[in-house]
């Protein structure tokens, strides 16, 4: 057995008394625990007769997160239908757009949770934030897989998207009476520079420049430096090498300004100049503005190595993390997940996420998308077939425990080629069937997947229930659906017994209008024909009635127990001058008795 990655979490059951032993039983998504009679020596207290349900995944019961599950199900189903034969370039664009769809669904949920503003949900919001951060990074590194050059631009976008407070602060500053004198003004400018948003930085600086006409030259110099910083243009004709040359040229110019002490008189501009040249110490001095090590990483890359290659990322990531987090000894789960992503270790990312989150939603969908991008090596696991299928099966099984979301799980099982069908067969029988409408939906699911065993068993359950409530017509319609001849025979027996007991048929509307369904079972056919015999008799069509009676016996579909009744029915026909037919009847019966 493999080693455990982390220590298992301990959950206390508050109502259980001390010293009692707990028994437990596994359920599909939870554990039922109960107190046993065994008392450890020295334990006191009376027994508690409760059964405790311990549930791991609370998320599926949250009404706002339900939207996440439904919308992502829709995206998932769409993803599975992308055709294999498209050229890879088109596929990549589609995969990126699907990834963006997933992320926008996460964002929409997050916004809604934030609006509700309950304290309980703060944790959920932060989890969703982290999930979106990780997903975005995976999209940049794995799905979009940008090469050196565009890679940095994508990483810049990533950081900008996840650091929203800069815009808030900037808005506050700009709305004040004198923005350039606001205490947060320089923070905002520096933040813009750290994020590579030079346009906004320059606009802010203009305000300061107007306040200090004496230092106008300095501001103009800074403005020039900021405007001349080259950014790689992926759609342009410039090659990476040419860009590199241009950038080094610019870098030297900034360095020269620093050496010349051009900004010595203004400490703020000096700081900005040092940032532009990529001075690590200055960057580290602004930890609160950067707030995360990955922001520090991207900023450092922006000003030191804008042509960073994907394969080089993990060196810088590791060193940045160490530099930034020197006070803390243990990195948080999020940090190690991001680091694993920078190291392009997809499996480690997925593994760490699986452990850190209590719901398989994220890893299942992300892995599925990465699998479609052909990024996962297919190594088989000891359990389940491959990683993607394993995660999807776990996620869908979790969904199946939900009273309502089980319908989504069906599509996930459909897309697990090896074990999905078996899992579905086992799970679908556990869905409680309170109304006929629900039973019909479950049946449709089973029939579409050729799960005939389950169809038969569900129809039998519904038919038995109907029979118990004396709804013979319903019971018959269920047996017709399942093509269950045995049950149809049972129902017909009930009808015939009713007739023998009361002398009349019940539910004539059913028997008279069965149509071709009567051929499902011999007994049923007999019942319908027997009723027809009575109708003919009532209409005084005696010759036809007698012929029918004869055919019923000769065709041997009349049950033996009914022969006396048939004979009794035949007696009145003797008076109707149809003797020859009736004699035939009696002879036939006599023949059969001998056999």
């Amino acid at each position: 057995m493999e080693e455990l990655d982390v220590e298992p979490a301990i959950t206390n059951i508050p109502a259980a008394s001390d010293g009692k032993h707990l028994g437990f039983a596994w359920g599909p998504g939870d554990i039922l625990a109960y107190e046993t009679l065994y008392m450890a020596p020295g334990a006191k207290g009376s027994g508690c007769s409760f059964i405790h349900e311990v549930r791991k995944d609370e998320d599926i019961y949250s009404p706002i997160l339900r939207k996440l599950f439904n919308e992502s199900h829709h995206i998932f189903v769409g993803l599975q239908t992308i055709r294999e034969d498209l050229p890879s370039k088109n596929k990549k664009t589609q995969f990126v757009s699907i990834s963006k769809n997933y992320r926008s669904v996460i964002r929409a949920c997050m916004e809604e949770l934030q609006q509700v503003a309950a304290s309980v949900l703060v944790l959920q919001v932060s989890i969703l934030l982290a999930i979106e951060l990780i997903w975005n990074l995976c999209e940049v590194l794995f799905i979009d897989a940008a090469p050196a050059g565009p890679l940095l631009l994508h990483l810049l976008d990533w950081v900008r998207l996840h650091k929203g407070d800069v815009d808030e602060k900037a808005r506050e500053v700009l709305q004040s009476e004198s923005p350039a004198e606001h205490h947060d003004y320089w923070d905002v400018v520096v933040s813009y520079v750290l994020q590579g948003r030079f346009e906004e930085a320059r606009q802010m600086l203009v305000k300061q420049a107007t306040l200090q006409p004496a230092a106008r030259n300095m501001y103009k110099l800074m403005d020039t430096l900021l405007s001349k910083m080259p950014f790689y243009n992926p759609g342009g004709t410039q090659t990476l090498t040419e860009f590199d040359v241009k950038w080094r040229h610019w870098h030297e110019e900034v360095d020269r300004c620093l050496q010349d002490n051009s900004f010595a008189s203004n400490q703020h501009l000096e700081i900005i100049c040092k940032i532009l040249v990529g001075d690590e110490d200055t960057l580290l001095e602004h930890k609160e503005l950067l707030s995360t090590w990955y922001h520090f990483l991207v900023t450092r890359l922006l000003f030191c190595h804008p042509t960073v290659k994907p394969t080089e990322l993990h060196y810088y990531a590791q060193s940045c993390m160490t530099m930034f987090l020197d006070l803390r000894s243990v990195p948080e789960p999020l940090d190690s997940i991001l680091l694993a992503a920078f190291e392009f270790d997809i499996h480690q990312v997925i593994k760490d996420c699986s452990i850190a989150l209590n719901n398989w939603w994220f890893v299942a969908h992300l892995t599925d998308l990465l699998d479609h991008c052909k990024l996962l090596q297919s190594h088989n696991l000891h359990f389940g077939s491959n990683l993607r299928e394993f995660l999807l099966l776990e996620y869908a099984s979790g969904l199946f425990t939900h009273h309502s979301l089980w319908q989504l799980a069906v599509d996930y099982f459909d897309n697990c080629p090896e074990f999905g069908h078996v899992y579905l067969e086992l799970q679908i029988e556990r869905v409680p069937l309170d109304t006929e409408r629900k039973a019909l939906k479950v049946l449709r699911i089973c029939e579409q997947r050729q799960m005939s065993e389950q169809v038969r068993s569900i129809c039998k359950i519904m038919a038995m229930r109907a029979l118990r409530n004396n709804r013979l017509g319903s019971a018959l319609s269920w047996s017709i659906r399942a093509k269950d001849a045995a049950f149809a025979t049972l129902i017909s027996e009930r009808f015939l017994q009713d007739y023998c007991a009361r002398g009349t048929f019940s539910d004539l509307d059913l028997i008279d209008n069965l149509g071709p369904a009567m051929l499902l079972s011999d007994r049923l056919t007999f019942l319908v024909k027997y009723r027809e015999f009575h109708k003919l008799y009532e209409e005084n069509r005696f010759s036809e009635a007698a012929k029918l009676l004869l055919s019923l016996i000769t065709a041997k579909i009349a049950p033996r127990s009914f022969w006396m009744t048939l004979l009794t029915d035949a007696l009145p026909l003797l008076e109707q001058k149809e003797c020859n037919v009736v004699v035939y009847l009696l002879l036939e019966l006599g023949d059969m008795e001998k056999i």
Partner: protein
Amino acid sequence: MESVNAKYVSQKISKTRWRPVSHSSLQQPDIFATGSWDNEDNKISFWSIGNHGSSGMDEGFEGDPQLLCEHKHDGDVLDLQFLDQDRIVTTSSTGAVTIFRHHQNSQTISVSQRWPRVHRYPCDNAPCTGVVCSSPEIVTVGEDGKIIVFRADQEGVIRVIENADSSTIHAVTYLRTTEILTVNSIGQLKLWDLRQQSNSPSQILSLSGDRLPLHCVDRHPNQQHIVATGGQDGMLCVWDVRQGSTPFSLMEAHSAEMWEVHFHPTNPDHLFTCSEDGSLLHWETSTHSDMPSFLQGGRNNSMISRSAMAPAGGNQSLISTWLSGDSSKGRLETTHMLPSQTLSVNSLDVLGQCLVCGTDGEAIFVNRQVPV
């Protein structure tokens, strides 16, 4: 056709209905009610799409439906109808029938009247599957095969037709003010005359082939003898209840159960159906006809002679189009109304130019510019 957006509502929608607009005003409907199913706590909710004779809004404005108010509902909401502007009747899987009142001023809902356990077996509750109302009369049907007639504002039931059907009755609709139509799970359409005291139907119609369950029924708004039904195999059947006992025309519509069929109330050459297979179809009879209607055969002639006051040309050919249902002649057009495959579309309602539908994917779709 403008795009239709989904609004995810965290509950599987079993029924959705527009609040009726008064006939005098030409306004588009703006409020609809939904009922949920398969939840531990089911709800009925009222939503608004903000169509209040909006003059200030742009042509293509797509507001999401906004939740106005909601109320707990005991059991799945199996059917829902507006009784009048403020009250709705719902039927539950617990066999209860409830009238809820929507207080527009305070945006709250209260239970106005309740008949618990009216549909039941001897030792269990039976789900009440369908309701139709024409204020103040309410008629419900259930899995126990009973038809029950109530009156709003009166305690107790007015009349029970016990054992009206030996199988489950799935839906009910009015044929005339005193006649109702029911469909059941052995593929029969039964006509009941409520003026008669007898407990048997005045007419039984059924399909000639396999007796597959019928799930929904709707009557043509103007021609009271034309009825459309949909069933388990997704076939759309159009019947003429005056003539014969089998359907007039059968059209392949869906690949799974058809849950609801609706004629457009003011423009009946349009028909809408929704199904378990996740599609919502809009059926439209085209108005061109190469042959003038009086040359098209015996049946039409009799119609012309009977409806001498009807406008020439148009109406007669359209009447016969539903009954001939010959889609190969290009007189019947169907369009999918939802952008892509979804889980089962359980319910739809159409009024004016607005269409609303609810799905098992916990989404509501509203289309405000249905081409009718």
